[in-house]
């Protein structure tokens, strides 16, 4: 149940429920300041941060964040948890606060600022020389791109799957999951990603089959999240994205 709530709240951060991008960014910062219960929760949060910044966080950041024990410890919500992870070298409460502030200053703020710039720049095609569109930072879909938004949702679902109740139990499940991950990366993962994941000798397969959460988090941060981040960056730069696909004549949307 706790995991379900966690997933729901993580997803909510980038679905239309939150009214403004700025509010979403504020929410992201406050969640970091409050601290996370687990490393996995931190990983999910970092993906949402990538989504809110439309792929403008550095690709290397996920691994720096998740694969550095001390940084992870600094982001956890209790000192006991920090000590379990780092023993005597665990960050003190004040060091933890300082580290989180550093992440906000060095990673989130520049990325979020770039995201706002991207959105503002892309809104120019529906402004004119005298009167711009207001509230360009208040959008329902991420970067005003519903398809980009859908890509984020696809990624989030793929991220949750190995950690869900049914998990990835068979090789067929693994193929299915790896394809979903690759699809959500829009070509930013190596073409052999699925075969690597499903190779019984691979570290991916071992971690998936044995539900080695920590190892999975680590590999996701190393390989998958950077690719997804690039995919979001590319998608948000594509101003040609359409609001919807070809519409057949239907009977919906009657205004009478």
């Amino acid at each position, binding site marked *: 149940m706790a995991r379900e709530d966690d997933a729901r709240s993580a997803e909510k951060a980038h679905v*239309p*429920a939150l*009214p*403004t991008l700025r509010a979403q960014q504020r929410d992201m910062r406050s969640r970091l300041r409050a601290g996370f219960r687990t490393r996995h929760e931190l990983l999910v949060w970092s993906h949402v941060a990538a989504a809110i910044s439309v792929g403008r966080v550095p690709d290397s950041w996920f691994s720096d964040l998740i694969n550095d024990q001390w940084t992870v410890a600094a982001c956890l919500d209790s000192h006991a948890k920090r000590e379990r992870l780092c023993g005597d070298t665990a960050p003190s409460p004040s060091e933890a606060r300082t580290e989180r502030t550093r992440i906000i200053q060095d990673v989130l703020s520049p990325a979020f600022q770039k995201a706002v710039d991207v959105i503002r720049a892309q809104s120019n*095609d*529906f402004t*004119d020389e*005298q*009167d711009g*569109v*207001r*509230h*360009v930072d*208040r*959008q*329902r879909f991420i970067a*005003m791109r*519903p398809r980009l938004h859908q890509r984020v949702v696809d990624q989030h679902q793929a991220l949750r799957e190995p950690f869900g109740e049914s998990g990835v139990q068979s090789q067929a499940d693994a193929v299915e999951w790896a394809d979903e991950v690759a699809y959500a990366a829009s070509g930013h993962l190596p073409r052999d990603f699925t075969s690597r994941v499903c190779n019984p000798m691979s570290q991916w397969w071992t971690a998936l089959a044995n539900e080695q959460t920590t190892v999975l988090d680590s590999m996701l941060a190393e390989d998958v999240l950077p690719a997804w981040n690039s995919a979001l960056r590319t998608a948000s730069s594509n101003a*040609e*994205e*359409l*609001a*919807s*696909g*070809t*519409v*057949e*004549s*239907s*009977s*919906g*949307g*009657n*205004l*009478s």
Partner: protein
Amino acid sequence: MLDVVQDPEYLYEWLSGLEASNIEKTREVKNDRRRHSIGENLVRHMEMTPFPKLLDRLERTADPVEGTPPHSAIRHPRAMLDAIIHTSDMDGFRLDFEDFSGLCDARKGVFEYLVDPDTSVDDSDLETTGGSDALIHGPMGRGKTTSVSTFIARWMEVNGEAVVWRGTPQRTEWLPFAPWAIVCLPEGVEYTVRLAPPEDGSGSVESDFEPIEVDLEDIVWRVERYEDLDDLNNNVLMSGAFHVVYPDPKFRGCERITQEASECPALEYTSVWEADRARHDPELDEKETTPTSHWWFSWLVHHNVNEKRSMRTTWVCDEASNLFKHHASNDNGGLSTKIDAVSQQYVDFRRNGLSFVLLTQKPREISWMIRKKMRWGVTLSGTDNPTGSDEIIGVRPPMNTEMTSDWKLGRGLFWTSGQYTEFGWDDLPRRYKVPGKLRIISPEVRRVSAK
């Protein structure tokens, strides 16, 4: 039915028998905010769903592409809802504080929908403050008039705004709304009103009848006279009501208004009487009569000059290419300069709450000076929707494939930059679709012109 159509007296009786029951009890007439509005009255008579209920329905309607609710009109709110729901800075406060007191039920319902966290559209999704616009295009017989009638009812219902239909002597497509129409005619100009038979495609001459003279007051809600532009916009036009305005052939106030407007060339007008005088007075230079339709240019500019009254207004211009001619020259009463003047004033129209709705069969017959300022396009079935780099209006069409040409009647595409949505509309109730045409003509103007 044919008997009725062929008998002018029956037709007259039908037309004058139509009524907008309870229109005299509306909030606009009684000046009582507890009452229903003229727009709500119109929507009910047209058997349309109240707009807040329509939003609920769209929330539950499957999107034509995704296959799941909500409908694309809700998923892509900038495509259509932004052009329908007009808000002001004051409304921004209302939404922030969720205080909707004094609003009519329909507008209140829409605002409650926008602030409800469980609905898909947030008030911040509707970016436009002030007026909007729409270039509605489609071939003859594909429902331009019926679709715009549906939109007019919605604009009146949701925004409580005045709608002004450009009256012309030949066209009375507004006739289904006659029981709600306030017909505004210039003071001191005589008009004859004739009811003409419907055009009969059968080729039988006998089935037609000669136009008969009728009393306009029997047919429409009210007939008002205006002295000049100030009088029309400050005293005669009624907030929340539907108006059919006939331009003043004497152009009273037209030149002065453009002299007062900033960033607007001084427009010149010559009435038929002035031209006639000049022709007969050797001391005066001969002048060419300005077409009466040019009055509209100054009427539009008046909205940006008027300091006495600021009223949300939607202007509906049927056959817009007759007024905003593509490749207009200055030979014809300075048409090019006048179109240029309106183009320069365009952004302020929106800011001053004036929405601009143009209807045409072929968008490219409308001057680019005007089209380039517009932000919403409405493509009706039976014609190709624009794609890619097509320059129809000032925003690039977001569609990359052709969709609308083989859609059935009563369907269309509403689009703006980056977003589009399909939509549909029902035919108006049969009893309001009176066959025949009203011709509202000034014999005096014709007589002087003929001289």
